[in-house]
């Protein structure tokens, strides 16, 4: 089975790629706004269905719609953020918990709306890329890279790089980082916290919605899919260290590799058990994520 080693690594990377896309936006939002958003999965679901309907209506390659989905959901997030801000800035109670329960309510609502509008059946977004693969076969040895998953990985890495550039090289990024470090001081330096937070939330919602489209091309989508991706997204962000953006790709790929190795080399029935146990163990050894850099 050593012959499968390259394939196991490739498969793990590809799963990791998808995980990056669902977690990177959330990590950004957490780093800046300190919000645990239970509705991540629902943003992904809504984005996926927008992609599905756009593709059904126009029969154009869905990946071209990524920017449309991003802009639309970015706008929704931007406009929505003040409500979240209100919850987070409450003087009373525990804001972390309040935001969590608030977004839990949102998630239920979105799921209900999704079921009402989209119905119960699973769908897939028809993409020309989802059929093909790049493969190298040589007797019994092979490495196959599904095109759509490769696109997903490239997209994920691009987003990661772009976000990093945005944070490190622009004035906006400076404001965001200042805000993440110290709210009051940033306010004194003349940073408009509300506006910046709205942008960040918009970016996060936009990215999550876009990853929904990719998921729809790679797997299938349904109105009830949200919860599954919320769990995954939480786990990756926590494993990476909450708010530590650069940790996300590594955490995502680690979880991808764990799954692919368990499925190929060990008892596939224990795959998810392994994922949860590893997550738990990492947190015990390194309480602030695998790099110890979470906030």
């Amino acid at each position, binding site marked *: *089975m050593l*012959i*499968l080693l390259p*394939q*196991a690594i490739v*498969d*793990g990377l*590809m*799963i990791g790629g998808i995980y990056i896309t669902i977690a990177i936006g959330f990590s950004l939002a957490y780093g800046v706004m300190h919000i645990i958003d239970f509705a991540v999965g629902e943003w992904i679901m809504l984005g996926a269905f927008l992609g599905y309907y756009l593709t059904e209506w126009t029969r154009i390659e869905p990946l071209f719609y990524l920017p449309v989905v991003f802009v639309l959901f970015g706008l929704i997030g931007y406009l929505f953020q003040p409500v979240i801000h209100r919850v987070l800035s409450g003087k009373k109670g525990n804001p972390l918990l309040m935001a969590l329960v608030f977004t839990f309510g949102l998630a239920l609502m979105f799921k209900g709306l999704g*079921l009402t509008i989209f119905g*119960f*059946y*699973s*769908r*897939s977004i*028809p993409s020309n890329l*989802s*059929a*093909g*693969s790049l*493969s190298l076969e040589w007797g*019994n040895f*092979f490495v*196959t890279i*599904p*095109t*759509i*998953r490769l696109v997903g990985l490239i997209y994920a890495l691009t987003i990661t790089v772009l976000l990093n550039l945005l944070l490190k090289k622009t004035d906006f990024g400076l404001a965001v980082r200042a805000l993440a470090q110290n709210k009051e001081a940033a306010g004194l330096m003349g940073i408009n916290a509300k506006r910046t937070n709205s942008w960040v939330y918009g970016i996060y919602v936009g990215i999550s919605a876009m990853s929904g489209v990719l998921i729809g091309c*790679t*797997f*299938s989508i*349904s109105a*009830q899919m949200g919860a*599954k991706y919320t769990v995954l997204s939480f786990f990756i962000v926590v494993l990476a260290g909450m708010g530590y953006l650069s940790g996300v790709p590594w955490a995502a790929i680690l979880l991808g590799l764990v*799954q*692919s*190795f368990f*499925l*190929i080399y060990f*008892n*596939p*029935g224990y*795959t*998810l*058990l392994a994922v949860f146990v590893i997550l738990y163990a990492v947190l015990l050894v390194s309480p602030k994520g695998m790099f110890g850099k979470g906030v």
Partner: protein
Amino acid sequence: MMKRGLLTVMALALIAAGPALAQDRDFYKVGVITSLSGDLATGGNVTKRGYDLWAQAVNDEGGIEIDGKKYKVQLFYTDAQSKPDQGASGAERLATQEKVDFVLGPYSSGVTLASAPVLEKYKIPMVTGSAESPLIWEQKFKYTFGTIPPVNYTGATPIETIRSLEPTPKTAVILGSNDTFSKATAEAFQAAAEEKGIKVLKFNIVPTGQDLTPFMSAVKVLRPDLVAFGGHDEELINLVKSLRQINYTPKALLMHYGVTEPAFVESLGADAEGVFGGSVWTETVHAEAEILWKDAMTYAKAAEDAFGVAADYTQAGSSTAGIAFQAALMKIGAAPPLSDDERDALVQALEEIDLKTFYGRLKFATEGQYYHANIGITPLTVQIQNGKTVIVGPEKDAEADPIYPLKPWDQR
């Protein structure tokens, strides 16, 4: 203070809102327990459609005829929310609040297993139109029946069909998702394959909802002739996508439930072509009925008109659950409301039923591991051909030759 007040208000509201006891009524009260929300909502809603369609058809005919008088049926729903405890609460509500005459049962085995004891207690018969797990029938509930045979009864047929094809498939990889039904399906496939001399190279139960691409890579190395998978709709779609993405086409690909669901073909398009499935009913199956819809096609048309979606065997089985009660009631001639004795007689009548329906022959087993499951029906092997579900086995029921081996993904 507040707590007491609220509780009292709640208790009072519930008592007050409960419908008044109906004494002499001229319609049957039919309870429906099914999961309209939660993880099993897809299947639950298909079940509901089947029950609704039956009730509508019966009422369109004026009702069920007892001693020259026709009695309509009225359905009382309870949503099990895919949770066994809610199923049990629902059963209790139907029994004590609505005082239903009989019950059309839930979609999943978990909910069935939790509601059945409650209905036994009130001696209310239940026929379920969609529970396919062998587990239910092993419990030997006296008041519980099912119109779809359990998967350990039907699973062998598609394997037999595939075994008879040329070139003969010699090896197989069999996997199942880790839920009751899918696991039982995979085990049924495994047992049948071993019995028919197909070598099972790999058998695994995998976590529900798992991305199976890496697993399929491991399968690709083994190059099995047959890949058989027990799972639910979304998982089946994802598995086909995985196989296509890693570009491995086995000679035959077998799944069970879900292949016949409209979403399968709709989602996969050309990639759904040639996938085998197990079924007990399709709209083209040959069945001449003595009751209600005269054949499968008539039923299919009625379903399409009512819901705009093609009917699958779960929906047909659910409608047949209604027919089972209808026939049994006519036989014992019991007008609503049913007394305890009449309900016991109803169970007796259900046990004795042997009926031709649009769905096929209906006959419940009265002993053994299939106790109270419908074993009158012939399990079918189906295949997706040109976007339609076509019967390809067993030979006497086949309408077309199987497509075999599968056309490679990249040549579609």
